[in-house]
């Protein structure tokens, strides 16, 4: 019931060809998906759904903090998300806000490692207004250096609102340790020093827009009370004139990890000990069972019904919260485990219990009946989650970001069905080994006289 600590966040179609994919009997995704690609490479996906009078309008930019390859510019994808609300010649920020206000739309945006998403839910009758507004700012964004500098302060404000959450410094340290070459070494928020330097990078921001905000790198998704043909026609009208020009960044490959990495953070205020651990895992793929297997492993270890979770939270009550999961990423990332421990003396016990559960998974084939229960859970969980245009858009967006194809979702759920006890053992052995492991712990350390300031800066 009590809110738990949160971790921070945080196209192959032929040009002009229209593809309608009916929902096949064994596909998990129950709705028809209509898609087309304009001549300039912009993909448009439409999913009609029974939500009388309401549509969700999502613009998915396949650029996130992963694309921040230039040193000193971490956090820029997220910063740019802010800049997209700074207006155009036709619609100043105020004019844009007034139109949104008039139509009563719920609108915002978010950025992750792999994507930047602009979303809006509003009256279906206003779809054309949404297209007009959104295409205008993507094609004609126009802001001056003063606006840019001011917005950089709001980003710093966003960092400040998160800073009392101990998971933020832990998450930063974890990434810095686990990645040396790849851009996953920084969080989506970015390094604090880079955030502070943002106001001076106006010219860089223009180049960022020019290179990444291009039609070939973007998908427009409409879900809800919408006729696909009408939406395609509008898209062509509003987005058709947008020029190509996407420049794919060269993202460094992270070499394999060769040893365990560890760090500890002293926290200046009294707090329960926290732990965050990560194992290097392969990039998302629906082509094999491997990453699907990791999703099942996260259920086997950390779902509420998992013996490990039961031991840590329900029976021994060593932790009031623990979670562990594989999260879909375009490049090799981390199977992340994090939680909060009741007291300092239990930190080793917690780590040993997690280690033992993993060793069991590696040594003994999992009961096939257990796997069937997990597969059932995933199927029902998916069905229950699709309860609004917004929720459907959220799911589809994940796959648009990963592969550009909304129907990847069906392939993923087909892979879940194929996972065997032998797959679980194989992947557990490949992934959960000491040379793949990074761990960060955090606990209260009373500041020594004269050191308080230094410690505060340390986080």
């Amino acid at each position, binding site marked *: 019931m009590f*809110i738990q600590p949160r971790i921070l966040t945080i196209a192959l179609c032929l040009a002009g060809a229209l593809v309608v994919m009916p929902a096949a009997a064994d596909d998990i995704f129950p709705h028809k998906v209509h898609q087309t690609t304009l001549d300039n490479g912009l993909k448009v996906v439409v999913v009609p759904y029974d939500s009388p009078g309401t549509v969700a309008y999502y613009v998915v930019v396949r650029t996130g903090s992963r694309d921040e390859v230039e040193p000193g510019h971490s956090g820029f994808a997220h910063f740019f998300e802010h800049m997209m609300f700074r207006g155009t010649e036709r619609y100043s920020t105020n004019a844009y806000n007034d139109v949104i206000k008039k139509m009563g739309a719920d609108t915002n945006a978010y950025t992750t490692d792999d994507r930047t998403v602009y979303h809006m839910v509003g009256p279906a009758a206003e779809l054309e207004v949404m297209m007009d507004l959104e295409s205008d700012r993507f094609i004609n964004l126009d802001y001056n250096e003063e606006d840019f500098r001011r917005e950089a302060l709001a980003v710093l*404000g966003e960092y400040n609102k998160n800073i009392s959450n101990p998971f933020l410094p832990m998450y930063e340290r974890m990434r810095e340790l686990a990645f040396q070459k790849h851009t996953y070494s920084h969080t989506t928020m970015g390094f604090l020093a880079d955030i502070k330097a943002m106001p001076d990078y106006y010219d860089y921001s223009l180049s960022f827009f020019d290179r990444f905000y291009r039609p070939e790198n973007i998908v427009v998704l409409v879900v809800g009370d919408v006729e696909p043909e009408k939406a395609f026609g509008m898209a062509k009208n509003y987005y058709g004139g947008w020029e190509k020009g996407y420049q794919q960044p060269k993202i460094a490959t992270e070499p394999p990890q060769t040893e365990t990495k560890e760090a500890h953070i002293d926290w200046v205020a009294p*707090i*329960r000990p926290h732990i965050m651990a990560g194992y290097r895992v392969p990039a998302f793929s629906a082509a094999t069972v491997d990453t699907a297997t990791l999703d099942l492993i996260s259920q086997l270890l950390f*779902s509420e019904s998992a013996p490990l979770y039961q031991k840590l939270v329900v*029976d021994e009550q060593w932790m009031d919260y623990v979670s562990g999961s594989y999260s879909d990423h375009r490049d090799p990332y981390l199977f992340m485990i994090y939680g909060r421990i009741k007291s300092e003396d239990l930190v080793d016990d917690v780590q040993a219990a997690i280690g033992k559960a993993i060793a069991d998974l590696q040594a003994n084939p999992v009961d096939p009946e257990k796997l069937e229960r997990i597969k059932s859970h995933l199927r029902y969980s998916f069905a229950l989650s699709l309860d609004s245009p917004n929720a459907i858009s959220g799911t589809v967006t994940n796959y648009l970001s990963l592969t550009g194809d909304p129907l990847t979702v069906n392939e993923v759920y087909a892979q879940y069905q194929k996972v065997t006890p032998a797959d679980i053992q194989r992947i557990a052995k490949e992934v959960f080994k000491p040379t793949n492991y990074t761990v960060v712990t955090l606990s209260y350390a009373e500041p020594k006289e004269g050191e308080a300031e230094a410690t505060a800066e340390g986080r």
Partner: protein
Amino acid sequence: MSRTNLVTVAILTLLAVGGVAIPAPAAGTIDTVTLPNPDSPIIAVRLLFKTGSIHDPEGKEGLAAITGLMVGEAGTQKRSYSELIDALYPMASSIEIETDREVTVISGEVHREKLAEYTVLLTEAVLEPAFSESDFSRNKEQALAYLTTTLRATNDELLGLEAIQQVIFDGHPYQHSPAGTVEALKSITLEDVKNFYRHHYTQANLMLGVAGGYPQGYVESLEKTLGSLPEGEPGELAELPEPATVEGRQFTLIDKETDSVGIHIGYALPINRSDPDYYPLMVANSYLGEHRTFHGRLMQQLRGHRGLNYGDYSYIEYWHLPPFTMNPTPNVPRRQQYFSVWVRPVVPATAHFALRDALFEVDRLATRGLTQEEFELARDFLVNYSKLWGQTLPNRLAWYMDSRYYGMPYYIDEIDKRLKKLTVDEVNAAVKKYIRTDDYHAVLVTNNAGEVKAYLEGDQPSPMKYNTPPDKPVLDADVTIQKIKVEPDTISIVPVAEMFQK
């Protein structure tokens, strides 16, 4: 059994002049709200018990919430909590529990293929809780961890949002957090929980809600099963005293190690959404600071023009977990409400100015009201925007249940109906009546509270230093804002370790 098909009621309310409240049930029956949607594969079930932290006995603050957890997150007489979770797992359903000031809501959603199995588990949890020692210690630990770690140490925003309620409702049953206090939690026994359950989990206290694609006869059967709860005393909701009137400007500084300053301003409001005045005030509030939008005055002025922080909003009723929600959450009804302004964390150097700027905007609204154009824009926004609040089946059901709790027609329809009839004069009259900057509580979550106290008392100008100056009209306004006399009447400093202690 008394039940009302609310789709029909909603249509009727649109036709009725002035609207009719959703009818209450006859005595001795379960009050049930249904929202059938045969095409939906999902069924939502919600049990709203009219029992919350206002019913916590003195010295046992947190008892209602712990009792809720012992029903919703604990074993039953037939299976342990682990076995219950195991049984729920393959259907991907859960039993959710939330205790607020006035109500405790147990809820869940299930796919229709699993409805029968789920219903057995849900009713078992509600009717036959085990009250085991092991579940008790775990749930108490959860509440303690929430108070001592989540609120005190890891989320300054939630800390400030809870603290402003505590000062506004000082001495009132709303004062303490539903999670209780550290000392009271330690004194709560399993026997207290059993007694609380016996007295409060009754048919008379229950409002049942069912929505979605449930089969014929399902609701009757569920009502029959829940009929084994004690009947309880039918009657009105527990009476609430009026909150104390705040006189002057009462500041509370929560002193803790933190790099930023969170600012909260507020005072009790004598109206809730069942009052006609609520609707004109809702329009004015939306103009001032609609939650998580970019078009409120506060947001535009503090963040948009001055880059002071991440967000700035205002409210005329309790908003559940605002850092994590975009739209209002249903099923946290409160008959007494409060006006509040939330200035998200700012850097310490700008805190004094940010406080003044927020006060300036509230005062500007209070003295000048809205123009015809501003009124129309805010009204039109709310008429459409509010329709998005019931997008999901469980939310729609919950809004219907809330409307019955308040004794009013369906809230979302009521917004549409009442706002469309409003005039700018009515909005400005409501502003005059309810919005002010003379008498209020303020909470600042800050480091170095002593220094903050000193500059608040000194009340000297707090000019802004911009790296990038805003436009001239903004700079011109700053000349006034930086000199605003805050004139605090009292400033108390509370070390964070004392928060939620007793």
